[in-house]
């Protein structure tokens, strides 16, 4: 019921060492078939130019202050009640908190003794203001702790996570409080939801720690995104294709190309040369990210292909990087890339940004694009089957048709800007093949939830990711002051305007 494993556990169940092994495995392109291969462990001559993709993912320092709030003992009447086993519960919660922090690599500053009076709370607040942690977590052990939670929300100056085990609140305590910006409340016995909150704090720090390469145009500059804190380094588009031209077909490239083909369910159009080129796009991106001390990118890929500056679109390489948690966005769409970062950093899984199409006969949304990760269930989980195809618009290179699980729930997530995010959910009805359809290779039919008419789905380049993440994403947004909207539930009547 309340075991300390989360539904987003993914890499959470792996040790750091195991995790790195998996990341390196995928980076080498050798684990895409659904199995991990012993061949991975084979000794390889150290390559001084090798870029470890695991090192590209941001690893921020994340600091959380925590305290238990109780009343002086013994308890008598009132909730949680005289029979509530304070010591046992507090031991349990402290242990679970330690485990969660270890899983998420958070630094925990925990008050040794429960806070049980106003002076204790004042001292705790003073410490929080001095230490300036990334968030504060309080665990309520009495119904009267809500006043202190309110005080923390107003005065601490950092996001506040409140765990209120059943027996420490009524609806009236949480109805208003839990909906205010900067606050995340778990009124439940489910510890995994608390870990979700800690994951939100980590995700925010990952955003802040990320430098995103914006590869487009001919300018070089660096700016910072409001609210998310992500650094955006604009670099000239030619940087990529010039580096690609110099990128050799080395052992890594051959291994990646070979493995990518070997573990595909089918290879339709791509030749061996296409595979080598796609793997070179992968090694080029890694090298560029490392050189620029960056963690993610979004590139004007279409423009580059249109100008015939590269022999392959980067789609295949982007798939490989997405699978190890390194965001690679398409078409230099900055907020498409930040939406991909959200699934990566908060949900520990890849997604793909899509071009939305209305299927008006079946009233379904079709979401199509050229780049999708394959580890849909999480970076540390087995990948789903995929087919190697060409990039359909240009008939060049490799674009992956990832076969999404039919019947599964998916979330569609899109930052409109750093102040607003669209989230909707739906169910995968089918994978759309090209042909007979035109458009991009990974293409899904989705029956939308709570959207009467598929034509009304909001956004463009929304990121499709596996699972129903509505509540977690909404909570993340509330914690960091981002407005959340959904597509209209009811269909438009009459003539819509532009």
């Amino acid at each position, binding site marked *: 019921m309340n075991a300390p494993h989360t539904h987003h556990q993914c890499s959470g169940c792996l040790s750091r060492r195991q995790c790195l092994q998996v990341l390196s495995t995928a980076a080498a392109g050798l684990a895409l078939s659904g199995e991990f291969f012993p061949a991975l462990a084979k000794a390889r001559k150290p390559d001084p130019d090798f870029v470890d993709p695991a090192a590209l993912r941001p690893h921020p320092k994340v600091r959380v202050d925590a305290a238990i709030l109780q009343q002086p003992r013994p308890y008598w009447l009132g909730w949680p009640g005289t029979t509530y086993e304070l010591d046992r519960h507090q031991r349990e919660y402290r242990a679970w908190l330690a485990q969660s922090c270890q899983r998420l690599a958070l630094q925990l500053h925990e008050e040794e003794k429960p806070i049980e009076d106003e002076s204790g709370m004042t001292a705790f607040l003073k410490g929080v203001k001095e230490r300036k942690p990334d968030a504060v977590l309080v665990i309520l052990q009495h119904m009267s702790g809500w006043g202190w939670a309110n005080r923390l929300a107003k005065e601490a100056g950092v996001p506040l996570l409140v765990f209120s085990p059943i027996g420490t609140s009524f609806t009236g305590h949480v109805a208003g409080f839990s909906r205010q910006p900067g606050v995340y409340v778990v009124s439940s016995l489910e510890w995994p939801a608390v870990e979700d909150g800690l994951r939100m704090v980590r995700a925010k720090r990952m955003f802040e720690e990320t430098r995103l390469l914006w590869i487009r145009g001919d300018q070089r500059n*660096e700016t910072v995104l409001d*609210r998310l804190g992500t650094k955006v380094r604009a670099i000239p588009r030619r940087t990529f294709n010039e580096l690609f031209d110099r990128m050799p077909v080395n052992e890594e490239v051959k291994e990646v190309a070979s493995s990518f083909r070997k573990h595909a369910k089918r290879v339709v159009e791509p030749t061996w040369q296409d595979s080598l080129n796609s793997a070179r796009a992968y090694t080029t991106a890694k090298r560029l990210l490392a050189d620029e001390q960056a963690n993610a990118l979004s590139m004007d890929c279409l423009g580059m292909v249109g100008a015939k500056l590269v022999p392959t679109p980067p789609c295949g390489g982007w798939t490989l990087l997405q699978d190890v948690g390194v965001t690679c966005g398409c078409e230099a769409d900055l907020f498409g890339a930040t939406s991909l970062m959200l699934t990566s950093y908060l949900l520990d899984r890849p997604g793909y940004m899509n071009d939305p199409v209305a299927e008006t006969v079946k009233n379904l949304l079709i979401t199509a694009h050229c780049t999708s990760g394959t580890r849909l269930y999480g970076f540390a989980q087995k990948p789903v089957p995929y087919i190697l195809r060409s990039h359909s618009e240009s008939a060049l290179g490799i674009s992956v048709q990832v076969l999404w699980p039919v019947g599964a729930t998916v979330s569609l997530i899109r930052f409109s800007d750093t102040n607003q995010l669209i989230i909707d959910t739906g169910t995968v009805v089918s994978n759309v093949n090209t042909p007979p359809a035109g458009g991009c290779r990974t293409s899904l039919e989705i029956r939308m939830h709570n959207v009467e008419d598929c034509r009304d789905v909001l956004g463009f380049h929304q990121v499709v990711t596996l699972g129903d993440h509505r509540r977690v994403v909404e909570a993340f947004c509330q914690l960091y002051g981002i407005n959340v909207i959904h597509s209209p539930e009811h269909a438009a009547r009459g003539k819509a305007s532009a």
Partner: protein
Amino acid sequence: MSHAPADRHPSPPPAPGRTCSPPPQHPLPAPRAAGLRATHRQAWLGPCRLAGVLALGLAAPLWAEVSFTSPGLPPTQMDDQGRLLEDWGAVAVKLTGAGLPAAPPPAVQSVKLDGIIPAAQARSQYGPVAVTLTAFRAPAWPAGLDVLNVRLTETAGQQTSAKLSLLLPDTVHLGLKTVTLGGRAVVGLPTGIKVSQAMREWGWADDALAMPGWATPAVECDPAFRNIRAGMGGVPILYRFKVEPKARLNVVLGFCESYWAQAGQRPVVCRVEGAPPQELDPVARWGQHQPGALLFAARDENGDGLLDVAVLPKLGAPDQNPILNVIWLFPADTQPNLEQAIAGRLNGAALRYVDVGGSNDQSLYAGGQAEYAFQLPPGGTEELTFLVACPGASVPLPDRAAWTPEKLRQSAAQVWRQWQAR
């Protein structure tokens, strides 16, 4: 794949700031903020000014033009009068007050904030009050923001009244939190302090955008229904009308929703002083492209001689951009017929008729400047921070940005450090 359509909502706003501090225990002879140090920089110096510099024997030459920027962005210049020269106009500061003399030309120099952020600084002495302007470029996506800090310090040990004027082009409109020029937000005003200048008889006092011709009424109606002002990003629309204190009036608000075809997308809350607030979903009530009106029995409840009329987004509404098309003010003893008002037949009977976002609309304040009144205690300081649109940029809309002057400065320092480490 194809290119995404442009996002409908504009980019986020900042939160400029104001700080006030008590007199320092040991006032510094020169008002230099902590973390500042003068640096050499290249600047053109005329012969007279060069002579002045040499006479002062300063390592860092003064009275020159200084430019500053953030990595890769076009620079802004502070001229030898201490004015910021932007691509939309100049921003200057003037201090006036009883007994305060006119200031001599300021000493302008290049400084580095936190040892790394290039900045321009202008220092002037207005009798007992030292004024220091410090401007740097913050790397706020997408094109940066100039941050202008104005610091007043009383240096003669006497209580001093002063009026600080931010001098701007005459063509700007002064809003509640921003200054706009042709729809571009060019200055973000400090939080926590209100301008002190004279008001017009009525006008908008918000940061909404005028969008003439936005609506397409499907029936014949008053032409004002074609125009709106929109509070993009959740900005409330706010009008103020000078009235007799405690006066009672009938207020009619006109709406025409032409974007959404379905109900529930843009519900708004109308707050007219002295009347119960009314929620309105124009599509649910009248339909898309259908003009409609609401009546409010208004009263200057707080007796300040101003009647406030506001339209806000309803909490949780999918579309957080409130709109308003028309305002009519009628005497309290007149019961306006709403159908007649919608048809435009009561305009002559109205005390005020406002074609919101249209030709007869106006700001509550005249353009050209923003004024702030201060009482400086002996040795006391006051600081105001303005956000200024740098070349190619707009100031983000209020209430949407999480930027603070402190965060902007931290970001600037981070970016410069990492840029130099490349």
